[in-house]
């Protein structure tokens, strides 16, 4: 009986993942896990593939600004499952042309490669720690490519309004506490788009130290997409703003391109100059 139940949940999730984008009024959220899964699908898995140009502004305590500009390609192998990512750096000048290839796996370490054009080196990178900063920003690798649903226990703790948005609030607590720098996170997830509008990170002493906020959502090709967001590090008084430009879905990315060649020969049709 239990098996049938969990099988039907899985089928439901798979079905829903392709469906939610359109059926935006599906509000039959029961548990925290379901809400969180909806969020993961809406944020990390919309459509089959995506191309976006990402700008980051990293501002430190002194107000000094560093900027990153990169193009990201994403392809889902299965919705809610393994994914391919390709990241190409346009700016700053000293990393221009550098690229990353990531095969994201649920349940084991990602496969990650880096290409350094100046020495024509394809380097395999160990990815045991997903909590490292992404490109020197306040976002982590996990923030960019997603944290697996099963890593945390998700508890629906209430409903709250954020501005005009009506949100469900989920508290996510890591199942293996030693591996993260937070003891738990609180998500404000919009009931309509299923995107998180705010995420609070609490440290091991239970103190709030990091806050993520969505600043702009646009509907692109029928898909609600976060196009501006900020991650504030309260403890260190710094923040990173992130903005997505030229987002398009279903641009025709296929799995066979995610090979070493992609690193040595960047796909100009998607990344431009």
């Amino acid at each position, binding site marked *: 009986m239990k098996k049938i139940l969990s099988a039907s949940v899985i089928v439901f999730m798979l079905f829903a993942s392709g469906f939610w984008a359109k059926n935006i009024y599906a509000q039959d959220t029961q548990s925290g896990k379901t809400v969180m899964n909806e969020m993961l699908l809406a944020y990390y898995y919309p459509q089959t593939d995506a191309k976006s140009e990402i700008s980051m502004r990293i501002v430190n305590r002194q107000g000094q600004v560093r900027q990153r500009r990169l193009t990201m390609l994403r392809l889902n192998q299965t919705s809610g499952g393994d994914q391919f990512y390709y990241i190409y750096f346009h700016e700053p*000048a*000293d990393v*221009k042309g550098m690229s990353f290839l990531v095969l994201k796996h649920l349940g084991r370490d990602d*496969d990650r490669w880096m290409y350094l054009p100046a020495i024509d*080196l394809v380097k395999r990178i160990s990815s045991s720690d997903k909590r490292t900063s992404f490109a020197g920003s306040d976002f982590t690798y996990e923030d960019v490519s997603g944290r697996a649903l099963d890593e945390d226990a998700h508890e629906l703790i209430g409903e709250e309004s954020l501005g005009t948005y009506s949100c469900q609030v989920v508290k996510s607590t890591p199942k293996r506490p030693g591996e993260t*720098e937070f003891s738990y996170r609180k998500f404000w997830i919009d009931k309509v788009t299923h995107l998180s509008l705010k995420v609070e990170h609490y440290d091991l002493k239970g103190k709030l130290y990091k806050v993520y906020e969505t600043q702009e959502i646009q509907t692109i090709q029928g898909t609600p997409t976060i196009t501006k967001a900020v991650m504030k590090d309260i403890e260190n008084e710094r923040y990173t703003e992130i903005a997505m430009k030229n987002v398009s879905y279903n641009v025709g990315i296929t799995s066979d391109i995610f090979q070493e060649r992609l690193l040595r*020969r960047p796909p100009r049709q998607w990344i431009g*100059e």
Partner: protein
Amino acid sequence: MLSKICGFILIAFILAISNSEVLFAESADPWTHIFDSVHGFTEAAYGHKFAGDKLAQKNSYNLLEQRLQLKVAYRPQKPAWLASLNPEFFYKGDLLADEYKETLRYHIREGYGLVSPLSWMDVKLGRQILTWGTGDYLFINDVFPKDYESFFIGRDDEYLKAPSDAGKFSIHGRLVSMDVVVIPSFTPDVSIRGDRLSFYDNFLGRIAGKESNRIFTEPAVQPANTEIATRLYRNFGEYETAIYAFKGFFNQPVGIKNESTKEIFYPKLAVFGASIRGPAPSVGGIASGEIGYSDSLQDRSGKNRLIENSAMKYLLGYERDFPKDWRIGMQYFVEQMLNFDEFKANSQPGDIPRDEFRQLLTFRITKLFRLQTLEMSLFTFYCPTDSDAYIRPRLAWQVNDHWKFTVGANIFFGKHDWTQFGQLEGNDNFYIRVRYSF
């Protein structure tokens, strides 16, 4: 004088471009576009020599230079037949005001055209940097030229790789991919000759500096001397595998043509090898293994004491990251001289003693601070069989998106004068580099 003027020009150039962003952002003429596509850096570097053996040309420093690197890529959109090949032309050149050598040099590091005549084929023709294999500062199947002088005096890691004038033909298949590299004109490693770094000169039988007067003979540029390197590779799940084959020459002058005139040359060489790389089971991190058979074609029996013997080379590597931006890497390298009995039987007094199995351990530790803007790293080579070692500590600070400060050191230890690192003991140095990227 000349280099001072150049230094001044470089500084003026830095100031000009650091102020130019605002100006260029406003105007949208074609020049803006061209200027936008030019990138590079200017760098000033100084490397101080510790009280060394005072044998080189200059003895208080071995690095004092200003460099301007410019690179530009051009991807023509017409004519249509050319655009359909997805063409890319890339050019990267270095203007170097080298106060050590008292020269002003312009060096083209890369200058190539890259096209895809077929959807599954890439052709890259021209001067290019070539790299493959799994080693970290250790090379078995990467037979392409290196510049160890740059490596030992504190230039950026980029300069360890020297360019080749070559054609690279790549075929990408579903089951297997292949690279074929054709190098018509042999390019050797940048050798240590005593003018900047002292070394063990086996003709003199001691550490020598600028007085070393070996004569280097490179293979003639002729069709028969074309070097060919190939790599066949594919992934099995998360494991990358490759096999390699090479026919050409040693990149180091490991052959003696004439002992009395101190003529040395680059003997013929073939290398066959294989490598594998992937996640280490259960412990996490990346493990790799590489093997190579180095076939010394002009001394296959090992009887000729004037030419390097054939060898087997083995490499095991492991790298892992840890929370808070820690990363460690370890390698174990073994070089087995083949026909060792012949080597021993034919050695003469004064020849450099060698072990049948030379073992080398490397250890890398890296830690990033302050949102990855400050990098502290230490790379160590330790050779228990030669009883020598080489350590490379480095601290690099990315001040902002343009400025980068790097300080580091190259320190050598050795029991004997003739071993790989031991011979460099008189060249210990620390260096500082300031770079502005644009």
